[in-house]
């Protein structure tokens, strides 16, 4: 038997991934793309509606706004946690790890119902606040967009934590020490030396969180109280309740374009291998 060259061995080993992607993702997605220009009749009517329909715009803007809010909050928390994890005592590290990993391992459905129990009007949080005399009547913490944001931030923190830790670890401590040695204050070192070096990590983490959030379904459906419809649930409605498959497919295409754009930015300005390294 002829020896297969090393180059061909690589190719053989690599082909299953693109093949699976093609079969399981690209082909079905091509079907969606076709729906968007053929249902209910051939033409660009769905995209025209996408461009002009105020109620669809409302859903899309709400989705973008909530995802951006979640992105910023999750990044803030994850940054603090990553910083703690990197520069604190082993005991603290353990705590941070616990806070990141425990929720990471629990199903999103369980956590969503957990938040519902904690946040609802006669739930744990309102109960404590009332017992402490902080509030007289319960706060509307859930069944609205606030509840959705709280649960989504909680879900997304680990996804922001790992890229941030990885980018912080690549910062050369000696540079920070040198800055201190040259007379910079701690704050100055942080703002001028440390923070700029984490920017690619921050950008990457933000995009990852943002893209992930765009497709959220369970959390807004349960914690939104039927009154915080986001893009994924809206597409579901178009497919299964109001059967406008064409418009549902067109929204999918728009979301894909948006995600592709963000991924392009991610690849262009942030080195992906450093985020996972």
């Amino acid at each position, binding site marked *: 038997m002829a020896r297969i060259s090393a180059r061909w061995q690589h190719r053989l080993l690599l082909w299953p991934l693109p093949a699976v992607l093609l079969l399981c993702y690209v082909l079905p997605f091509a079907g969606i793309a076709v729906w968007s220009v053929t249902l209910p009749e051939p033409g660009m009517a769905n995209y025209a509606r996408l461009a002009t329909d105020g109620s*669809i715009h409302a859903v899309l803007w709400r989705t973008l706004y909530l995802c951006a809010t979640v992105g910023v909050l999750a990044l803030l928390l994850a940054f603090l946690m990553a910083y703690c994890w990197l520069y604190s005592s082993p005991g603290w590290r353990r705590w941070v790890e616990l806070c990141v990993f425990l929720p990471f391992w629990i199903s999103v459905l369980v956590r969503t119902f957990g938040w519902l129990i904690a946040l609802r009007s006669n739930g744990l949080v309102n109960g404590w606040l009332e017992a402490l005399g902080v509030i007289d009547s319960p706060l509307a913490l859930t069944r609205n967009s606030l509840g959705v944001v709280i649960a989504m931030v909680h879900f997304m923190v680990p996804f922001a934590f790992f890229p941030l830790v990885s980018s912080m670890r690549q910062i050369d401590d000696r540079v920070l020490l040198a800055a201190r040695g040259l007379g910079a204050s701690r704050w100055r070192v942080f703002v001028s030396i440390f923070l700029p070096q984490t920017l690619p990590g921050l950008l990457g983490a933000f995009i990852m969180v943002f893209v992930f959030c765009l497709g959220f379904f369970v959390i807004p459906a349960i914690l939104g*109280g039927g*009154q915080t419809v986001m893009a994924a649930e809206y597409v579901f409605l178009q497919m*299964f*309740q109001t059967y406008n498959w064409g418009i549902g497919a067109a929204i999918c295409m728009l979301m894909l374009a948006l995600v592709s754009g963000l991924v392009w930015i991610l690849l262009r300005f942030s080195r992906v291998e450093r985020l996972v390294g």
Partner: protein
Amino acid sequence: MHQSHQQDCIELLVEKARRGQIDRRSFLKAAGMLAALPLAMRNGIGWAQERPIVLVNWGGDAIDAYRRAWTEQFSRETGIAVRIDGSGPTEGAIRAQIASGRPSWDVVDAEPFTSLTLGREGMMRPLDYSLIERAKVNEAFATDYGVASYLYSYVIAWDKQRFEETPRTWADFWDVERFPGKRTMYKWMNGVLEAALLADGVAVADLYPLDIARAMDKLDELRPHILAYWGSGAESQQLFLDGEVSMGQIWNTRAIVLERDTEGRVGWHYDNACVTPSSWAVLNDNPAGAESTMRFIDHALEPEGQVELLELLGNGPSNPAAAAMIPEELVELNCGSEENLAKQFKLDIEWYADHYGSVLDDFLTRTGA
């Protein structure tokens, strides 16, 4: 050799079947009556196996209840297995089944306007009234593509700990001064626009065609007091159990359970409720074919099973003959009784068939913001 009379009968049956003198259904029915089906099955008689029926309903307790009220006995009598899938035959889901070219569903427990809309588009089988006895239900309930399986109702339920007075009308539902507390209504719109219009002073006779703009404006008025639009029966139940809402527009079936589970803390009645049938319908080109599914539907219109479903879930029988068999303690729970029907208004299925999709879209973007 000792042989019981029963065994002898079975032998005779098996012999007849082998010679092709009786058909499979009669054989199984006879063998079933002799309570000897397993024995008879081992005798190596070959029939073309009839395909099991896949029945799609809305899940939850209904899966078990349908089994007890309908499918177990049907299978015993005919030898045709029925599998229940609780994934919910929404209009979109049925369309997806048909569009796939090879539907896996047979019988659906669908909204009557869904059967009507899809039937008109050629996606449902016309019901075969030579196999289904049409007279088993009220004339209005047997249409070309759907026949009423049972009745249910969207009722006003309230938490008695929150106010003394009994809310009676939809105007009361909107009156947050006299009846303080949060509200919940149905997410998928059925009966919600009607409630808003009735609250706004429209008479029942003038409800349809619905004045959508007026209804939406009236809903906006209540918006700050609507805690959630419930999407599933379990969700509506939870909102009351946890005391999160003081009043809601919920299914009578859930209201019955709530009143029992809260030992009367949650009250409800049929006054001004919105009653509507659910319907049996069969998908076109379904795997089990027309005959067995039509026979199943005919079986499910028998009064006995419908009374059993009333006992299990609280669904009102669609067959008027059931009325005489309903145990006394269940009579007032039956939303289909003459007395209760008089208190309620009927959802206009024709209007929903023509408008549901487009209006629901507007409704959801209005409520979902």
